[in-house]
C-alpha cells in the first residue's frame, strides 16, 4: 500500500511501534502536560531543536497523550465549525489566518534571533 505525500502511513506505523516498544509507566523523563498541549496546539512557538523533545520518540505514554491531545484539537475544530455562525469554509479560513499569524510571529522571532547571532559573531 503506497503512502501519501505526507508519509501518513509511515508516521502512523511509527506511532504504533513506539506505543508497543517503549512503555514508560513510571513516566521517567516525560514532558509535562502543558508542554505536550502546546506541542499539539502551537508547535511553532516551541524551540523543538531542544533535545528534550526527542523523548517522545521513546515514550509510549507521551505518544499516547499527544494522540489524545490531537483528537481533542480535531474535536474542538469540528465543534467550532458546527456551532459557529460562520460557514465551514469561513471557519477554515479563520483557522488558516490564525496559523498564518502565529507562523509569522515565529518567523519574525527566528529572523531576529539569527540577526542577533550574526551581530554577536561580528563583534566577538
Amino acid at each position, binding site marked *: 500500500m503506497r503512502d501519501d505525500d505526507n508519509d501518513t502511513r509511515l508516521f502512523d506505523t511509527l506511532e504504533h511501534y513506539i506505543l508497543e516498544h517503549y512503555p514508560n509507566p513510571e513516566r521517567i523523563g516525560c514532558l509535562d502536560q502543558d508542554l505536550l498541549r502546546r506541542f499539539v496546539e502551537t508547535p*511553532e512557538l516551541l524551540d523543538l531543536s531542544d533535545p528534550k523533545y526527542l523523548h517522545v520518540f521513546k515514550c509510549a505514554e507521551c505518544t499516547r497523550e499527544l494522540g489524545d491531545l*490531537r483528537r481533542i484539537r480535531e474535536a474542538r475544530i469540528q465543534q467550532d465549525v458546527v456551532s459557529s455562525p460562520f460557514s465551514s469554509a469561513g471557519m477554515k479560513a479563520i483557522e488558516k489566518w490564525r496559523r498564518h499569524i502565529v507562523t509569522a510571529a515565529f518567523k519574525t522571532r527566528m529572523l531576529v534571533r539569527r540577526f542577533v547571532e550574526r551581530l554577536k559573531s561580528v563583534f566577538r
Partner: protein
Amino acid sequence: MELEKAREAARTHLGDEQLALEMMELAIQQTAEYLAGLSPIGVEETRLILMRFYRNEVRRRQRAGRRLTYRGSAMDVERLSPSVDCSFARIEADLDLEAVLNDAPADLRCAMLLRYGSRSQWGEVAEILLKSKEATRKLCERELKKIRKKLEL
C-alpha cells in the same frame, strides 16, 4: 566441660562467645523436648544429644549470617530496579529515533518532531522552518528511509 567447648565453637564459627549461653539454653530445651517421650537414657547419651542440638544451632546461625539481607522497603527495590516488562520491551526495540536524531541538525529534529508530534503536514513544517516543501522533504529523506526499513514498510 561442654560449656567450654560450646564457647569455643561460638567463638570460632560465629565470632562471639557470648552467644554460647543463649544457644546452650536453646539446645537444653530441645534436648528435653526430644527426651520427653522416650524411655530414660544415661548421662553420656544425653550429653551427645545436647551437643548435637548445640552444633545444629551453631550451623543454623552460621548459615543465617551468610545470607544477604536487604534493609529497606519494596518501594526502594522498585525504584532501583524498574519493572522487568518495560526493560524487555525496550531491549527488543531496534528502532531508536532519539539516538538517531540526537546528532542530527536542529532543522531535521524540528521537522521530524513537527510531523510526528503535532502531525503538521510537510507544507506547514516547511513554512515553520522557512524552507520549501521539497527542501524539507529532502532534509528528512534519509531518516525516513531508515525508519521505513526498520518498520519493514
